[in-house]
């Protein structure tokens, strides 16, 4: 394995692992805040129990999120020293601001988790706000740095020298609004369907009580609000790529030749040798219409780039269609669910097939996030910083990169397995007796039992 390939594999694996926890780290805090808020408004111990349960799972998830994020942060320097020299000089402060967002999230999560028995209920609920605000802010900061990698601005790079650095202009790079909005929504889509899927599976196994219904409903409500917005925002992203990163759009849609009347290919494998698709469903003029609103619209193809500057269309196209497909499938499931819910006068539908659909959506939401990132990252190749720094120039000269890749894969496997075992075990522990005194936060003695199971208090 060459050093470059090993470094790319290690970076990709690390990010694919980390993003799962990022999404949960943004989505779960909002669910916590909503559930605890409902509990306080309705004085409903079931909502409170949901918040408690989610918080307990979040301890493990956040910890793995923190360690996996730390790996990524170090890898930016250890694997890509030339890249970090470049990005650090121009837009580095954003990473530091992201650090503050993590601080906010970690501090208030510590307070939230360990003061159930100290703070009165209202104030305990208040401490959940900085957690999700911190998570959302960190998403904005980190995705802005990624946007800058896609459309770098705010510097002049000549003869290997960086001059005229203007960090504010770099932050205001044109991709930022598109990518940050799309990613923030993705967190709520994926986390919403993911949590809903857990309750759908439990209901399929016969646990159809109030607790599982409420859990399913809240998570699905969050996902349902976010998904249509997500699809609209994705459409903006794709159209924007036609001007900002035409090579990425060409790879996404397998456009080999620059021309007008470009069809949209759904599925299939773009074949670079013949310049055609294997097994795709073509929609005549589709891409020209989508990107320019006119069948005569010209789309720039891969042939307008020298061969060494072209991304590989196969993974990018497949990932893109997978993301879009997942988006529409999950939207369909959510719409059927709420249609039946309101038709049956606010009773949660419990069709087996529908619940299975929700369970599948849980998987597809996360898959869409992974595939979306493959579109962004593979579609940018061969550049690490688009048009400025090639991935092959960014990589370190350090030895043993293959061994390091294998070692980290091993670590991720062990972490993933242990964490799954722990979360499953948590899910199987019996629910506490759900009365308000016993589960609500506050200093009353009745809730010591549940506080102890959460390792709260001394």
């Amino acid at each position, binding site marked *: 394995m060459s050093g470059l390939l090993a470094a790319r594999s290690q970076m990709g694996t690390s990010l694919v692992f980390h993003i799962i926890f990022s999404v949960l780290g943004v989505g779960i805090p909002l669910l916590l805040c909503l559930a605890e808020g409902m509990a306080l408004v309705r004085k409903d111990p079931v909502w409170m129990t949901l918040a408690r349960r989610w918080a307990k799972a979040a*301890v493990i998830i956040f*910890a*793995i999120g*923190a*360690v*996996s*994020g*730390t*790996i990524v*942060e*170090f890898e*930016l*320097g*250890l694997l890509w*020293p030339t890249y*970090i*020299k*470049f990005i*650090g*000089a121009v837009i*580095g*402060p954003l*990473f*530091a*601001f992201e*650090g*503050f967002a*993590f*601080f*906010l999230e*970690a*501090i*208030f999560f*510590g*307070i939230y*988790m*360990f*003061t159930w028995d*100290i*703070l009165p209920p209202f104030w305990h609920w208040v401490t959940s706000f900085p957690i999700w605000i911190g998570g959302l802010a960190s998403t904005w900061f980190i995705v802005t740095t990624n946007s800058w990698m896609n459309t770098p601005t705010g510097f002049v790079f000549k003869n290997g020298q*960086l001059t005229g*650095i*203007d*960090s*504010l202009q770099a932050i205001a790079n044109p991709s930022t609004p598109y990518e940050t909005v799309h990613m923030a929504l993705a967190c709520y889509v994926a986390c919403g369907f993911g949590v809903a899927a857990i309750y759908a599976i439990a209901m399929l196994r016969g646990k159809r009580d109030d607790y599982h219904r409420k859990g399913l409903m809240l998570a699905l409500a969050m996902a349902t609000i976010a998904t249509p917005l997500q699809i609209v925002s994705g459409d903006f992203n794709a159209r924007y790529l036609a001007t900002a990163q035409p090579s990425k759009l060409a790879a996404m849609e397998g456009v080999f030749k620059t021309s007008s009347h470009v069809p949209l290919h759904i599925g299939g494998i773009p074949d670079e040798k013949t310049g055609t698709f294997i097994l795709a469903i073509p929609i005549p003029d589709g891409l020209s219409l989508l990107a320019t609103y006119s069948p005569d619209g010209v789309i720039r193809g891969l042939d307008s780039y020298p061969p060494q500057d072209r991304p590989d269309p196969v993974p990018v196209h497949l990932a893109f269609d997978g993301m879009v497909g997942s988006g529409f499938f999950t939207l369909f499931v959510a719409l059927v669910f709420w249609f039946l819910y309101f038709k049956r006068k606010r009773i949660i539908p419990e069709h087996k097939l529908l619940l299975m659909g929700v369970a599948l959506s849980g998987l597809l939401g996360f898959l869409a996030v992974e595939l979306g990132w493959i579109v962004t990252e593979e579609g940018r190749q061969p550049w690490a910083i688009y048009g400025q720094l090639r991935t092959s120039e960014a990589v*370190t*000269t*350090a*030895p*043993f990169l293959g061994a*390091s890749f294998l*070692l980290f894969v091993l*670590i991720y496997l062990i*972490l993933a397995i*242990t*964490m799954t075992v*722990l979360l499953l075990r*948590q899910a199987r522990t019996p629910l506490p007796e759900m009365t308000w005194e016993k589960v609500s936060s506050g200093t009353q003695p009745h809730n010591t039992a549940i506080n102890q199971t959460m*390792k709260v208090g*001394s």
Partner: protein
Amino acid sequence: MSLAYVILSIIWFALIAYAAFGGADYGAGLWDLVAKGDTAKKQRELIDSALGPVWETNHVWLVFLVVGLFSAFPVPFSIICIVLFIPLVIALIGVVLRGSGFVFRTHGLRGRNALIWTQVFSASSVLTPFFLGLSAAAVASGRIRVNPGTPAQTDLGSIWLTPFTVMIGCMAVALCATLASVYLTVEASNSKDRDLAELYRRRSLITGAVTAVLGAIGLGISPIYAPLLWQGMLSRAIPLVIATMLIGLGTAATLYWRYYRIARLLIVGEVAFLLGSWGVSQIPYLIPPDITVDQGAGSPSTLFLLLIGVIIGMVIIIPSIYLLLYLVKLRSGMGFFQRGE
């Protein structure tokens, strides 16, 4: 003072915070390793309850440290990443295993698996500060040479594996152990566990003495292995070094007479002065002898943005950290001037 030095001072503040808070978390892992006998279970519970609420916050200081360095000093950072690739990767693995080992063993694992993760947690708690200390010493020793013509090369040990770096690595471990045992003394005496408080008081005194001896040896061999650091210390940092020694004695005295809360404050001061004297000794170099702080700094526009952001961030973060510490640690327990039993 130039902007670069202002930013470097902030980074140094983060380093001190990470050492004083995160360092204690590593030290607690070491004490977990040696917890044996009939109090072993009680010791582990004390460690769990002490670390649980704060370790993740403490860990963010490390993240902040790394990003602060690469945004303010991008070129030196990338050189260090290449040259010290091996010790830094080992430290990174230690960081990862420490954090995950801790949550795994405190949140639900039982039996043999819990034991394995406990051992992983403890072993990585020793490994990580050792390699972080060693890497810092490798930079300070002045053996990383930077020539504009030749690109940096990963070092296989001639730079980062010397008696000096090993000594500083050991000293980092001992310092973490001292910090942890002082904090645990306070925690134990807060929860009215006299036996444990005595145990950790004794351990604080011993590991404190070990740290002092290792530090003295490190200082003693620095004229050979880190000459620039030694000269810098002689010419600028002598008052700080003396203050460090006095605070160390003060910590020992307050521990001896059982003023635990004062001792906890003093040991934090000890860390601050220790790292402060290293920083002042190394001025004006970032990577001695070839890169100075001003040469290594990024562009003024980036540094200025960083400064503004850090000020805003600190205004939000510092009170929040205080709130966390107040709610979970300071609120209950003994008064500042109160003596332990």
